[in-house]
């Protein structure tokens, strides 16, 4: 359990070796590069232009990959997230790097093809619109751009209602009378081409000289002239458009075929994105170097335990000066944690809170023990626990190369699952009361698996007391962590003032409560400590309280202010009360798992026995318990985190450290191995 000590490192080398040295450092990945600290005549090189150029190429490659994946989705298994990086041998590396222009061309072709496909799809949409527009005019046997003959005019258009021939004649007549154009209307010829529910498409033929009057009449009855301009009959125009659509479709098909063919390059493209990621990272580092005419200086941090080896390796290979000193707190070194394999999965959880700040200890080990313990009590079902353990271990075993974050999470759930199984056995939960329900429903015999300890559902008060006891232990462990770090830092006074007094006050109060009959009756305890113990406990409490009043305002010089602050410090004892009560969630969440599991079992058993009943039970059982595991896994995760972050960390831990992020090969798809 510890924060690894860091060393400050300065490497001074020749510019000619810069590329090689940086690549070597990137490959071993144990050095975090910081801005160079020497400024005597050294210059920084601005690499922003090169970086953005590479970023552009990388973006193109990623986009092309995205396109290839949408067209070639079947190759992807649902477990791809677990598969992790593939291995790539260094001997193939140079060959692919040499081919990079070619691969980039493939990727840009893919982007181009995709763009063409999108354009063509737009064209098809336009064609479809045109076809839809022409469809009502299909019965017309002349081209629609015909304006008329020597003596007549033709107008095409729509009326915005469903008309019959008789009704149109009637409406036209009325309009003609109103506008004083009855004669003109009589000479009109109207033909209905097509009717729909809301529209009537008509052709109107009139004498040339009457056109203006006819237009007035038509406008009056709500006629809109068609805007279609085509020199063929509608039917043949539609045929032509359909043919064109077919052609574009086959062009799209060809483009898609080319994309499918490019899919065989997708591994190369992935490799190349990794390659550009590495180059961008390298240029970012180059920006931080201090450079003179022919030398460069690299400053950074590396874990102290490997720093000697790093220096030796560098000095053997190149002419470099390698300085290193163990960093002090003032340097604000980045944080790298080192823990045993059982606690290590929780480093991720700690990171979501905050890494240890200046001079703080690494709480991972103590936290991990409580984490698994509390998580198990909250879920507390042996059936669920075994399922979680199986799922996590199978995933860990089948996919050995998965990413670090995933592996940590699965390992954490594996240990949580073991704890869940343990508490399930203690409290008698096996998929809720599934054993009992199945045996009574299908075999007419009641089989009950007795809890090894007690059943929280039957004795909730006992479970509540146990939960609060766990809480007190957890909180006192938090105070203990503070004690440890105070002593380690040599602040014995702080240890006494901030920890021992609180132990006396809170511990004394708890012991005193146990001597009062009222409390033990309420808590259902079958013992009461003797009154003499109570007197001693009160003594401890008073000493603790006075100590806190006198010392917790010790940062102020003014004695009145000091006492006032001390009184406020004592007020924090209410915080302990709510902290302890907060652990009642162990009872509530444990009961929630059990009761909901029982509800599903009961629902399943309502279909009775027999084969059909069995099938129905199996279905309800599978669905219900999957749901219950999901909900309660989330609940247990969230509330275990809360107890750790708020109650436990509140006693001693602030965090604020910066994560150690070494300059390394940070690829997404491949890891490169020397063969």
């Amino acid at each position: 359990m510890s924060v690894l000590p860091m060393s400050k490192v300065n490497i001074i080398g020749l510019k000619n070796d810069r590329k090689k040295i940086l690549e070597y450092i990137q490959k071993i990945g144990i050095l975090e590069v910081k801005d160079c600290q020497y400024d005597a005549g050294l210059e920084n090189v601005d690499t922003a232009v090169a970086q953005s150029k590479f970023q552009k190429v990388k973006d193109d490659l990623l986009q092309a990959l995205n396109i290839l994946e949408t067209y070639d989705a079947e190759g992807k298994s649902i477990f791809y997230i677990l598969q992790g990086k593939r291995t790539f041998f260094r001997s193939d590396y140079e060959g692919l790097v040499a081919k990079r222009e070619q691969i980039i061309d493939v990727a840009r072709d893919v982007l181009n093809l995709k763009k063409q496909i999108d354009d063509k799809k737009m064209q098809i949409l336009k064609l479809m619109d045109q076809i839809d527009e022409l469809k009502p005019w299909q019965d017309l046997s002349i081209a629609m751009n015909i304006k008329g003959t020597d003596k007549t005019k033709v107008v095409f258009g729509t009326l915005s209602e469903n008309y019959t021939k008789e009704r149109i004649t009637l409406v036209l007549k009325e309009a003609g009378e109103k506008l004083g154009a009855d004669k003109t209307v009589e000479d009109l010829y109207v033909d209905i081409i097509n009717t729909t529910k809301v529209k009537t498409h008509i052709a109107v033929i009139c004498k040339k000289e009457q056109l203006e009057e006819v237009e007035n009449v038509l406008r009056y009855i709500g006629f809109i002239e068609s805007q279609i301009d085509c020199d063929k009959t509608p039917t043949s125009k539609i045929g032509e458009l359909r043919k064109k659509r077919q052609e574009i479709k086959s062009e799209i098909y060809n483009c898609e075929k080319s994309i499918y063919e490019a899919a065989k390059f997708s591994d190369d493209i992935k490799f190349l994105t990794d390659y550009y990621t590495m180059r961008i990272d390298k240029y970012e580092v180059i920006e931080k170097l201090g450079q003179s005419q022919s030398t460069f200086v690299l400053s950074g941090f590396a874990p102290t335990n490997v720093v000697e080896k790093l220096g030796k390796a560098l000095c053997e290979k190149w002419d470099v000066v390698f300085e290193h000193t163990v960093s002090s707190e003032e340097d604000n070194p980045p944080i790298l944690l080192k823990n045993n394999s059982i606690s290590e999965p929780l480093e991720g959880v700690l990171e979501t809170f905050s890494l240890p700040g200046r001079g703080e200890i690494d709480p991972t080990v103590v936290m991990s023990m409580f984490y698994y313990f509390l998580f198990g009590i909250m879920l507390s079902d042996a059936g669920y626990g075994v399922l979680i353990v199986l799922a996590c271990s199978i995933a860990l075993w089948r996919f050995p190369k998965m990413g670090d974050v995933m592996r940590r999470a699965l390992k954490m759930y594996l240990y949580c699952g073991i704890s869940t199984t343990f508490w399930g056995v203690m409290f008698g939960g096996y998929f809720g009361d599934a054993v009992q329900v199945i045996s009574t429903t299908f075999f007419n015999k009641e089989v009950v698996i007795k809890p090894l300890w007690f059943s929280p559902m039957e004795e909730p008060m006992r479970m509540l007391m146990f939960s609060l006891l766990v809480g007190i232990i957890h909180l006192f462990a938090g105070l203990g962590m503070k004690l440890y770090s105070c002593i380690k830092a040599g602040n014995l006074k702080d240890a006494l003032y901030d920890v021992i007094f609180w132990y006396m006050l809170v511990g004394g109060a708890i012991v005193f409560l146990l001597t009062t009959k009222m409390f033990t009756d309420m808590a259902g305890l079958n013992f009461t400590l003797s009154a003499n113990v109570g007197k001693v406990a009160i003594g401890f409490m008073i000493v603790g309280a006075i100590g806190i009043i006198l010392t917790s305002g010790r940062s102020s010089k003014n004695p009145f202010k000091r006492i006032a602050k001390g009184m406020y410090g004592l007020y924090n004892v209410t915080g302990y009360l709510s902290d302890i009560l907060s652990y009642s969630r162990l009872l509530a969440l444990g009961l929630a798992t059990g009761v909901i599991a029982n509800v599903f079992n009961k629902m399943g058993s309502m279909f009775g026995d027999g084969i059909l009943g069995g099938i129905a039970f199996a279905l309800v059982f599978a669905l219900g318990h999957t749901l219950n595991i999901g909900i309660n896994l989330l609940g247990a995760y969230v509330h275990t985190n809360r107890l750790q972050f708020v109650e436990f960390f509140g006693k001693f831990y602030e965090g604020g450290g910066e994560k150690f992020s070494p300059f390394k090969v940070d690829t997404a798809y491949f890891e490169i191995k020397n063969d």
Partner: protein
Amino acid sequence: MVIMDNLGIVFALLGAAISALLAGIGSAVGVGMAGEAAAGVVTEEPQKFGKVLILQLLPGTQGIYGLLIAFITLSQIGILGGGNASVSFRAGLLYFVACLPMGFVGLWSAIRQARAAVAGINLVAKRPEQMGKAIIFSAMVETYAILALLISILAIVGIPALGV
């Protein structure tokens, strides 16, 4: 007094129903609110689906607690499980009162928790590494739902021992 005695079970069931109703409504509203915010984030960044989903589900627990109280009440008064316990008027009222904390606190806390969850979802949209803290802000609210659940459970489980 016969009528009064018959009313016992009605009040007990009313309590169970109120607990499931109010807490369920709270969670439904809450999960809905958080879901809207989560969908907004996913339109921009689909890869954050897993993160915002967890935050969306947080206000959902109150509904489950309400169900839990309703279920315990139903099995205590013999509606579930086929027991034939007769519920006196007094006991019925006691069950009713015992269910109230979960119902009311469940309703309000789910909605307030949802607002914290929505804020958390916005936080995750901008700074995904702060996920742990976003969860904690929302989970702080749930403490009070858990305390209400606790009181309701203890009261309901304690009523038969009173012998009323």
